[in-house]
């Protein structure tokens, strides 16, 4: 079967093709050529310039131009500089970085060394979450092999350039993916962010100039240097170059990892690549940017995915999680789910994030349990905007996004919850009634027998009735009924 080839694999070019534990496989696909060319035939300035010209932007979510970041660090004079790889992937449902580290660790090792040469650093650190044991094992082997082959360590290829990499393990705190919190954690302190400036490129790890780049950003570097910045910048949109790896998850037929050129439409991702929602269900929304992003809907089907367009739609690129939701998903409940996550993960240092998240969650809980009023909407919006304006780091500043985005896009759903006390998707159990349709019920008594709280009554061969006051809305009767006579309302 011939299918349209909508994906373009640059960062994941070797994943699934080479043996990640065999450095020779990587060397065979022109691995370490970018590094070799850089240190033997180029200058740090030229490398920075090439990355700038490529238009590569940070793939961890923020989208800061990578070349500019490198330039800041390169221009700083310091006795020691550091290259840090942020492998603290924490968005729910996202696993792009793990796939790259497990499938092609050498591309990250090589890119870090190139970065070291470009900015004048001799030490690289990979901050990786301890929950990724296989990625850690393969990365360690890659580093050891690279040393043994002389492409890492002291006097690389006889040029006098020294660069080595060590690993630091994260304990799995979401906030440690934020670069300043990550640096604190690496230094052995609590993983709490601090106010920028100073930016890490000026004063980061141990107050020295530090580049923090995401795994996927690094994985692009060798390809850019081997094939040229002109090639890379010819892919994508005007302000977002290259490709982006996404993890398609949720209510989607083809769950998996995809890498697509920037500028691809949402429709192409969800339907052509993802195959739509399973079971013939209607596509409702997709959450990009994880708990920091927002929901895009069918109305946005023609939006070209890039950093700026997603921001304009009140979402964000994020690290690449795409959680697809179908008609059975309640958007208020989803907003509550993401807030529940960030509420757990807030480090507690600043008040807007620590208390604001709790208050926002409580209001959402009130709405989903049928106690909400329309006055809550205004309060929530005002609180959300305040949190965005005053929180210390990216976690807090983006945490209200799922709430604002769903309130904006699914205002009618919020209204149904407070005005009609109904959950249109049939998720919020306090707002549900499970009823038996008398015209369909044949009185087989199956439902009455399966009901765990014995709230269904009726005579044999006569229509049954559910006692709403006693019903716990477990839905066991719906599953059991052979006549589709029981429905959620």
């Amino acid at each position, binding site marked *: *079967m011939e299918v349209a080839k909508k994906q373009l*694999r640059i960062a994941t070019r070797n994943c*699934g093709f080479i043996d990640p*534990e065999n450095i020779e496989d990587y060397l065979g696909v022109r691995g370490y050529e970018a590094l070799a060319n850089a240190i033997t035939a180029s200058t740090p300035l030229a490398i920075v310039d090439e990355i700038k010209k490529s238009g590569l932007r940070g793939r961890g979510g923020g989208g800061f131009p990578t070349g500019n970041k490198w330039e800041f660090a390169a221009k700083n004079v310091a006795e020691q500089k550091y290259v840090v790889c942020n492998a603290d992937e924490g968005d729910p449902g996202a696993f792009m970085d793990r*796939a790259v580290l497990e499938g092609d660790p050498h591309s990250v090792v090589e890119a870090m060394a190139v970065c070291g040469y470009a900015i004048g650093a001799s030490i690289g650190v990979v901050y990786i979450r301890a929950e990724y044991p*296989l990625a850690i094992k393969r990365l360690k082997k890659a580093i050891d092999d690279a040393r043994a082959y002389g492409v890492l360590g002291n006097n690389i290829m006889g040029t006098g350039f020294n660069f080595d990499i060590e690993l630091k393990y994260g304990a799995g705190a979401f906030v440690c993916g934020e670069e300043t919190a990550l640096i604190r954690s690496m230094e052995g302190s609590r993983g709490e962010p601090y106010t920028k400036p100073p930016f890490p490129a000026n004063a980061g790890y141990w107050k020295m100039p530090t580049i923090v780049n995401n795994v996927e950003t690094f994985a692009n570097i060798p390809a850019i240097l081997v094939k040229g910045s002109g090639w890379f910048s010819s892919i994508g949109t005007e302000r977002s170059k290259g490709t982006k790896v996404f993890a398609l998850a949720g209510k989607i037929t083809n769950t998996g990892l995809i890498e697509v050129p920037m500028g691809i439409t949402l429709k192409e991702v969800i339907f052509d690549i993802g195959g739509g929602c399973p079971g013939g269900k209607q596509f409702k929304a997709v959450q990009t940017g994880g708990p920091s992003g927002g929901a895009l809907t069918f109305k946005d089907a023609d939006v070209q995915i890039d950093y700026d367009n997603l921001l304009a739609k009140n979402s964000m690129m994020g690290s690449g999680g795409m959680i697809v939701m179908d008609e059975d998903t309640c958007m208020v409940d989803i907003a509550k789910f993401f807030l529940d996550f960030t509420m757990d993960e807030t480090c507690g240092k600043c008040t807007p994030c620590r208390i604001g998240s709790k208050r926002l969650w409580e209001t959402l809980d009130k709405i989903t349990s049928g106690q909400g009023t329309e006055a809550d909407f205004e309060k929530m919006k005002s609180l959300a905007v305040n949190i965005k304006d005053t929180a210390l780091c990216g976690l807090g500043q983006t945490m209200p996004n799922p709430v604002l985005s769903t309130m904006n896009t699914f205002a009618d759903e919020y209204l149904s919850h407070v005005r009609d006390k109904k959950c249109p998707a049939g998720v919020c159990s306090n707002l549900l009634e499970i009823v038996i349709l008398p015209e369909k019920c044949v009185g087989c008594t199956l439902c009455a027998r399966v009901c765990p709280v014995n709230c269904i009554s009726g005579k044999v061969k006569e229509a049954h009735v559910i006692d709403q006051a006693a019903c716990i809305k477990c839905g066991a009767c719906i599953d059991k009924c052979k006549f589709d006579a029981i429905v959620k309302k």
Partner: protein
Amino acid sequence: MAKISSIADLKKFQEDYKAKQATKKEKIVVNVSLATCSIASGGKTVLAAMQDEAAKLGISNVEFVKSGCMTYCHSEPTVVVTLPGKESVCFGNLDETGARELVQKYLKNGEVAGTVIPVNYVRVEL
């Protein structure tokens, strides 16, 4: 193992590698996805079953490669089989039985069996 101490060394290595790959053209190459998620869904069982079945059937010109994520979470475990002179084919949703069947049918006779996953990407090769 040769230490790479110059760009010439690297070029030499690439040439040698290419030559080595060319000799593999006569071989059946079975690439098994073994990332965390592939392993969790039974990738190692599939690899063992295919190795065992190939040995049983006396198919000796086969090389197994343990690679990383093949990106098809919806159909793990997955393997990509390249028969000599043919395009690679990706098979998904394998288990012990499916893996053995794949060896009996596709590796032995070139007869397609099980779920074939169409390639929907262009891979950038350096």
